[in-house]
């Protein structure tokens, strides 16, 4: 609104780039405006040819197992799925009021969330470029809504930043950009960068910095309507007699630098966190449920704990027992087997594959993660702070606070993600506490950011992934070195056995990895079956 820049049309800009730097750059610039996105996903899978009743045993009913089951069944295979847990979905999971969850070690939690409220203890966000997963969502009728990653009005909090006073993201972001633009502008106009920037580029760069950083005509970042248009006002523009806006005061560069809060600024710039992210309406497990409907419940056997996998010339035989009682040992066989059991578990199991695959199965430690859902009596973050969805970040052991991205304005209770940390010490230290204690601490720490926690807290659920009985960890934590040696071997078809899952992908801890891995494995297995005719 107070931006009085003469507009530069996109064509002008392209002409400018073209004149100055030649047509190759111009082509690149155009290409980056929206064509040629390259994804490994090439649209719905087509498995041509009749497998003539060939049978496949699928181990695990997470998204990898469900994808494999859906595609193979569609292609005419006889399919049977064995799943350890008493529900389908694996890590694709939501907790709702009335659910009970028992972690390893025996601690049971009962979820007291109100109707329609939930926690996604595992996956919660889907990048727009996870084409395969989204394609299945669309085809299986899973309704999606925006997941807010970056909320400019959410808080950044550091225990030593600004004396522990939380800051709005829009303030830190605008001021950081502004100060950096001013500094760089000074260096440029004082000819300090002459050996790095040509004379023509210098002028363009100065103009770009002025616009990017909201600098004034003197190339300084000073409180003004222009800077308030970025960071927000001390008093917002209004109507009638009290209409005139009051500009806000930027924070100084030194304070910003020493605060360390700049560390959070690039989060939304990561490809996997670019707007738009999505979430299923009603909880992540809507995806698993839609898959299960499409696969057909009749082929999925729950409460079946696989204990060994053996192949010979003609078939694969799997031993399993009732996972609740440990009794009732049985076997199942098929001509082929796709195993999606996480490597944390598979590495402890008897399976006769070659040394290369066996070594690969043992080469991947499992990362740690903790998520704590907190139900509050009211949406004080919306009502008191005008935070609608998105994430506040902190260096407290809770890591972040994730606000619900749905139900805005509702007057009832609501569930916040009160802690989410992974891989580093805080995640392990939370895991080592009893569930009630994890919740208590999340409330205590979160109250440093939202003092309303103390009065409004209602109930909580804490999921530590190393205690989840069907996973024993959050995700396969490949090191670069291990990947180099073992990844190819993990993904080969070994005789009649092939693996799939998040761990057999270059997308660790993403559902897209599980789905793409299953598509790849199924495709190669089908080729082998057809070739063996």
């Amino acid at each position: 609104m107070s931006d009085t820049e003469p507009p530069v049309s996109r064509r002008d800009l392209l002409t400018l780039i073209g004149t100055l730097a030649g047509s190759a750059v111009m082509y690149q610039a155009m290409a980056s405006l929206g064509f040629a996105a390259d994804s490994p996903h090439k649209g719905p899978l087509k498995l041509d040819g009749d497998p003539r009743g060939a049978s496949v045993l699928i181990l695990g009913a997470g998204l990898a197992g469900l994808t494999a089951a859906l595609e193979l069944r569609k292609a005419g295979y006889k399919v049977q799925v064995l799943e350890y847990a008493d529900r389908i979905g694996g890590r694709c999971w939501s907790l709702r009021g009335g659910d009970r969850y028992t972690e390893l070690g025996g601690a049971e939690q009962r979820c007291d969330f109100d109707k329609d409220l939930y926690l996604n203890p595992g996956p919660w966000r889907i990048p727009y470029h996870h084409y395969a997963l989204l394609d299945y969502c669309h085809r299986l009728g899973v309704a999606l809504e925006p997941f807010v990653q970056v909320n400019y009005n959410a808080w950044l909090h550091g225990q030593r930043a600004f004396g522990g006073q939380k800051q709005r993201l829009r303030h830190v972001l605008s001021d950081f950009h502004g100060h950096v633009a001013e500094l760089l502008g000074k260096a440029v106009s004082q000819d300090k960068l002459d050996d790095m920037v040509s004379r023509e580029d210098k002028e363009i760069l100065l103009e770009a910095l002025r616009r990017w950083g909201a600098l004034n005509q003197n190339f300084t970042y000073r409180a003004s309507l222009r800077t308030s248009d970025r960071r927000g006002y001390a008093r917002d523009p209004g109507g009638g007699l009290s209409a005139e806006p009051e500009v806000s005061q930027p924070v100084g560069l030194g304070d910003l630098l020493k605060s360390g809060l700049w560390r959070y600024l690039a989060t939304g710039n990561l490809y996997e966190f670019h707007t738009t992210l999505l979430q299923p309406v009603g909880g992540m497990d809507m995806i698993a449920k839609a898959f299960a409907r499409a696969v057909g419940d009749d082929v999925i056997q729950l409460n079946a704990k696989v204990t060994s996998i053996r192949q010979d010339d003609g078939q694969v035989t799997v031993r399993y027992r009732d996972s609740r009682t440990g009794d009732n040992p049985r076997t199942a066989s098929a001509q082929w087997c796709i195993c999606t059991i996480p490597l944390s578990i598979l590495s402890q199991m008897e399976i006769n594959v070659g040394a290369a695959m066996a070594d690969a199965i043992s080469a991947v430690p499992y990362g740690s993660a903790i998520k704590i859902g907190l139900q509050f009596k009211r949406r004080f973050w919306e009502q008191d702070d005008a935070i609608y969805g998105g994430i506040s970040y902190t260096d407290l052991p809770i890591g972040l606070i994730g606000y619900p991205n749905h139900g805005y304005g509702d007057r009832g209770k609501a569930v916040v993600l009160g802690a989410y940390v992974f891989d580093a010490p805080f995640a392990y230290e939370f895991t080592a506490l009893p569930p009630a204690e994890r919740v208590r601490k999340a409330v205590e720490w979160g109250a440093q950011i939202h003092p309303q926690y103390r009065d409004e807290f209602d109930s909580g659920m804490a999921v530590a992934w190393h205690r989840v009985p069907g996973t024993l960890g959050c995700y396969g934590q490949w090191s670069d070195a291990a990947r180099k040696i073992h990844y190819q071997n993990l993904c080969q078809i070994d005789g009649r056995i092939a693996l799939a899952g998040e761990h057999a992908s270059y997308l660790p801890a993403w559902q897209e990895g599980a789905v793409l891995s299953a598509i790849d494995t199924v495709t190669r297995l089908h080729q082998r079956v057809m070739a063996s005719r």
Partner: protein
Amino acid sequence: MPRVVPPVSSALLALVLASDAMAQPSDGTFASNQRFLPKDGEVLFRSICQGCHMPEGQGATGAGKYPALARNEKLEASGYPVFVVLNGLRGMPPFGPYLDDEQVAAVVNYVRSHLGNDYQDKVSPDDVKAVR
């Protein structure tokens, strides 16, 4: 999902990035997300190992298992737990990057002399260094 951020080298930068111990318990837990800070073997067991191996070191079984550390004869050779804590074992992540030699020695000595184990010989930080 998670990305590894390279460690910072300058002391000043480390100070800016470190979290403070303001709200944290006095035993040194929850004080840093870069490294575990407790020095005491029992505190290290309580805040790390028991997350998977359980409070009495009894282990747990689901679709897979955490082996018991309690009354575990494989702990007799002290080099074995030192190696496992530093480098991990199959699903168990390596803790070498988060613990110094003194801490590894302390937690291994605790585990080998408690939880129904009674191995009297002690591991020294130098023993740990040799395995790193």
